[in-house]
Structure formats: structure tokens, C-alpha cells
């Protein structure tokens, strides 16, 4: 019934159908962002060996008993606090750009979901997702993520504060450096698929693993070239959303919160929300490109029937579970990506600016380009000579790239001086005695 209504819309009123698709991306993100904030605070606290906010949603009944709800309403309390904070606007700012910059920072976070398929493109879900299945799917993602620089650099400039300007410029330098490696990593996946459309990339991941093993699906993270590309993309993704360990431009104890120093109350809430929405959608794109999109497990359910006929019914049942539960599997993978984000924040120390730049240009970009060349060699060898020669050629080229790297990196950092160990000498020569435990 709903399907007929939607099919009718597709034929007669495609604009309304497009609007429904847009709402189906924006409304879940807007409702999930508070959940993400809660999840981050709780998970970060657990990883740091403390409890985290758990008081807000406690219901006290009449007989004194309390129903604890794990602080689920904490984000609402945060929102209310931010709404009622005093909205301080400095006097010497560039007014037009100052008020426009948070909107410019929020726009790419939502616009990234434009070509992302959260369900299969046949049947019922095919009418609802993706918003626009354009031929240039992945390039759209790269274009919108490169527009994310503007909000930050304009916010830093308009604040008329030299630390904000510095934070804004550093952040934009970081963003454009990591965009490159991200683009080349995505390019190797596009090369392996043969199409720029995200729906085609997910469909290519439903084929047999390595093109040969029919029982498993060809999720790109399970292939060697896809694994390297996924690692590069993951690091670049964390750097693109300005999250720890790459959050030097916005960290409070480094640069007085950088480009959003002069933004208070709701404008800061807009930056905050944009960052979380960007985290969520980047995880979604990572899932689409490398983790097989909306599929449940990397198993080809319909091919189970080839192994034994008893499993055929099981295979078809699981296939329909895979189809109808597609949004659930997709959101699960997004939550997995968010968990990796929070895990990285809890574990890794912040990178200094020169370390950050050197990582982006000297480590990630050469790795991504070398991976791209290896994918090209593999595909060419497989097409000309068959599967096993292709594997041998890929292994040979990986080895060559490794030796090239080692020899090149050896020449670059040759003249870095190693600090010698210095011994500390006390002024009056008195060595303190160890304090006896009393």
C-alpha cells in the first residue's frame, strides 16, 4: 500500500518523493545527534574509568524508589543550557560573515548524505534511497567535504581574534591536506568497482570475494587493497571532522578553542551539531565504501543453497532479513564507525601541528597513491592473465612499494638530530631519600 503510494509519487510527482527522501535523511540525523552526544559522553567516560552523566533521567517514585535511565536526557539538558546561555557577540566582528559562518559549517554535514544509499535500490527501499542516484556519486561526497573548509576559515576570520584566525587557518590547512589522501583512497575503490555511483559500489561488494569465492561477499575491507584504502580513509575521515587526535585547531587547552572561541550559546551549538552530524555521515560513507553498505554480514545468503539443499530455505530467509532490515544494519555500521571515533579520542594523544601535516603529506598521501597503483596493476593482470597471476603481480608490486618507501623515507629524515640523553645534576648535590611508607 505504501509502496503503491510511493510508486505513484515517483511517476506523477517526483519532487514530493524527493522531498520525502530528503526528510528521511535529515530527520533521523537531527534526532540521532542527541543520542550521539549521550553515547560519546558515556563511552568516553567508561574508557577513562569513570561513570559519566547518569543523573538526569532518574525518575523518583512516591515510595522513594528511583528508576535510573542512565542519563539519557543529558543531551536535552545540554541543549537547554546552551539555549539559555548569554549570547555574547563581540563588537569588532565582520557581522555578515560572523552570522553566516555557523550555517556554512552545518550545511556540508547534512548535504553529504545526498548520494548515500541506506538501503537497497530495488523494490520498496529503491523508492526511498538514495536521494539522488547521480552518475558522479562519490565525487559529490568529495566536493561537499571540500566545502566544509569555508565555515571554519570564515568563522576564524570573522571573530577578529588572532587566535581564532590562527586556529581557523590551521584547521583549513589540515582539512585540505587530508582531503587529498581521502580522494586517492576513494579513487582506488572506484577503480576496483568501475563506477562512481555509490549504489554500484555497494552492489560490487555483493559479488563473490576476490571474484572467485562465491560464499562470501566482496566487502572491500576484506581485500588487501581495500584494507589499506580503508585505513587511509579512516584516518582522513577523523582528520576531516576535526576530531581527536586531530583537534588541535579547536582544542580548549591548546588555542583557547580556536575558531569557535567567540561563538556562544546557540551559534556554538550549531557548530557542535554540525560536527556530530558530520561524524555520523562520514561513518555512513565509510560503511558504504568499505563495509558493504546495508548488508548484514559478508555472506552471500543465496549461495548457501549451492552448498547443500537443506540450507536453501535458511539462505532465502536470511536474504529477506538482509533486505528488510537494511536500515538497521546500516545504522549499526554507522554506530560502529562512531565507536571507532570515540575510541580514538579516548586513546590517542593530540597530534602537534607539524606532526599532523607530516602525517598527511608524507605518510598517508604516498600510501594512498601506492595503493592506487597496486590496484591498477592487479586489475590489469587479472584481466590479461587470470586470477592467480593477478595475485602474484599484486604481491610483487606491494613488495616493490614497500622497498621504495623504506629507501625514500630513509633519505628524507636523514639529518634529523637525535637529542642526546642528559643527566640531571642537582644544585647542592643532595639526593632526596626515598620516603618510607608509614
Amino acid at each position, binding site marked *: 500500500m505504501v509502496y503503491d503510494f510511493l510508486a505513484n509519487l515517483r511517476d506523477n510527482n517526483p519532487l514530493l518523493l524527493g522531498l520525502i527522501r530528503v526528510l528521511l535523511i535529515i530527520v533521523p540525523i537531527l534526532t540521532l545527534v542527541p543520542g550521539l552526544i549521550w553515547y560519546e559522553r558515556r563511552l568516553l567516560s567508561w574508557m577513562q574509568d569513570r561513570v559519566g552523566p547518569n543523573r538526569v533521567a532518574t525518575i523518583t517514585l512516591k515510595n522513594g524508589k528511583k528508576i535510573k535511565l542512565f542519563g539519557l536526557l543529558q543531551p536535552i539538558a545540554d541543549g537547554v543550557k546552551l539555549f539559555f546561555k548569554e549570547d555574547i557577540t563581540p563588537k569588532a566582528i*565582520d557581522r*555578515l*560573515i560572523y552570522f553566516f559562518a555557523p550555517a556554512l559549517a552545518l550545511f556540508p554535514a547534512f548535504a553529504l548524505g545526498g548520494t548515500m544509499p541506506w538501503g537497497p535500490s530495488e523494490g520498496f527501499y529503491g523508492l526511498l534511497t538514495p536521494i539522488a542516484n*547521480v*552518475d*558522479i556519486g562519490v*565525487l*559529490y561526497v*568529495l*566536493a561537499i567535504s*571540500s*566545502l566544509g*573548509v*569555508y565555515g571554519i*576559515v*570564515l568563522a576564524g*576570520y570573522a571573530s577578529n581574534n588572532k587566535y581564532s*584566525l590562527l586556529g581557523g*587557518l590551521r584547521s*583549513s*590547512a589540515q582539512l*585540505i591536506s587530508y582531503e587529498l589522501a581521502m580522494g586517492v583512497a576513494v579513487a582506488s575503490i572506484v577503480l576496483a568497482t568501475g563506477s*562512481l555511483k555509490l549504489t554500484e559500489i555497494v552492489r560490487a561488494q555483493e559479488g563473490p570475494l576476490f571474484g572467485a569465492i562465491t560464499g562470501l561477499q566482496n566487502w572491500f575491507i576484506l581485500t588487501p587493497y581495500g584494507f589499506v584504502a580503508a585505513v587511509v580513509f579512516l584516518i582522513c575521515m577523523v582528520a576531516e571532522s576535526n576530531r581527536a587526535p586531530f583537534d588541535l585547531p579547536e582544542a580548549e587547552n591548546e588555542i583557547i578553542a580556536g575558531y569557535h572561541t567567540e561563538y556562544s550559546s546557540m551559534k556554538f551549538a550549531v557548530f557542535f551539531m554540525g560536527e556530530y552530524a558530520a561524524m555520523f555521515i562520514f561513518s555512513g560513507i565509510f560503511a558504504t565504501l568499505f563495509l558493504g553498505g546495508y548488508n548484514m554480514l559478508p555472506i552471500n545468503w543465496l549461495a548457501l543453497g549451492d552448498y547443500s539443499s537443506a540450507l536453501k530455505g535458511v539462505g532465502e530467509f536470511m536474504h529477506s532479513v538482509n533486505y528488510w532490515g537494511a536500515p538497521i544494519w546500516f545504522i549499526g555500521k554507522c554506530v560502529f564507525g562512531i565507536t571507532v571515533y570515540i575510541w580514538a579520542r579516548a586513546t590517542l594523544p593530540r597530534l602537534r601541528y607539524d606532526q599532523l601535516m607530516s602525517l598527511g603529506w608524507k605518510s598517508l598521501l604516498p600510501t594512498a597513491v601506492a595503493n592506487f597503483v597496486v590496484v591498477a596493476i592487479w586489475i590489469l593482470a587479472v584481466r590479461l592473465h587470470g586470477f592467480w597471476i593477478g595475485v602474484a603481480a599484486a604481491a610483487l608490486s606491494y613488495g616493490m612499494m614497500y622497498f621504495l618507501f623504506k629507501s625514500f623515507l630513509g633519505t628524507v629524515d636523514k639529518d634529523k638530530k637525535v637529542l642526546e640523553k642528559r643527566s640531571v645534576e642537582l644544585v647542592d648535590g643532595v639526593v632526596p631519600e626515598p620516603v618510607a611508607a608509614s
Partner: protein
Amino acid sequence: MSLVPSIPPTTEQALFLGMAGLAAAASLGVVAIKSPIRAALCLVLNFFVLAFIYFSLGAQLLGITQIIVYAGAIMVLFLFVIMLLNLSAESETRKKFDFKIPLAALVGLGVFGIVGSQVLLPLQAINQPLSANDWGKPQALGYSLFTVYAWPIEAVSILLLVGIVGSIVLAKRKV
């Protein structure tokens, strides 16, 4: 006479007129606005709207490349330089009455009139696009760039390499 829209304009015509008006206003803003940052932002708007016009022409790959290259990289570089050099509106000192401004505007109008009358008027009748519908898709452009235009692409890549090396050499403090 296709220089004026039909009344009422079709959807495509109305959309194009809106986008063209925005692009024209933005290009006037680049020339007229004194503050370099706001002129740069007008140029960003111009490039963005131009990308949409390319999409309306059917050139998808070039439209998205316009956003990635021009609006996403070149204009960010411009904004960097303006912010690093701390250029402000007062840095463009002007004489009281600069004779160049009205003269240049007049010459501009003259060029527009002459070229418009000679080039645009004979081409009025062309209303329908003649190229194939998947003319702008990545497949068509990619195929030709790798087969027909392979040599120019290699030359352009060498040019870009020279550009990278040149800008690094220029930016070093001590050679």
C-alpha cells in the same frame, strides 16, 4: 526572436534566469566590492552558481569538478592569501576621482555591445541542444580523455608538477 523569454517562461528558462541573475550579480560584486574578503566570497558564490548552470547543461562531471577545483581549492587558496596578508578594504587606496573607472566601464559596455551584436544575434535561432543525452557523464568524458586526448592530459600533468615545484620554491624563505 529568442533573446527574450517566452511569457510565461518554461521551468528550465525560469531556473536558468534565476541562476544567471545570481551569477551576474556575483560577478558585479567581485568587481565593485572594495573589501577583498567579500569580493572573494562573491566569487565563491559565482563559481557555485556556475556549477549549477553546468549541471543544467548536462555536464555533470565538469560541474562537480568546478565545485571541487574552483570553489573547494582555488578559492580557499585565495582566502588563505587574503587572510595571511591581512588585506582590508582600506588597502586599496584610491585617488579622489580615478578617471579609469568610468572609462573602463564605458569600454566594457562597448565590448559587450560589439561582441554581442556580432556573435549573439546570428545565433539566436538555436534552441535545442544537439549533443547526445549522456554527453556530460563521466564515462563519455573519461573515455575521450584517455584515448583521444591522452597526450594533452600528460602535458597538463607535467604542467601541474611544474606548478607544484614552482610554488614550493617561491614560498621558501631561504633558497
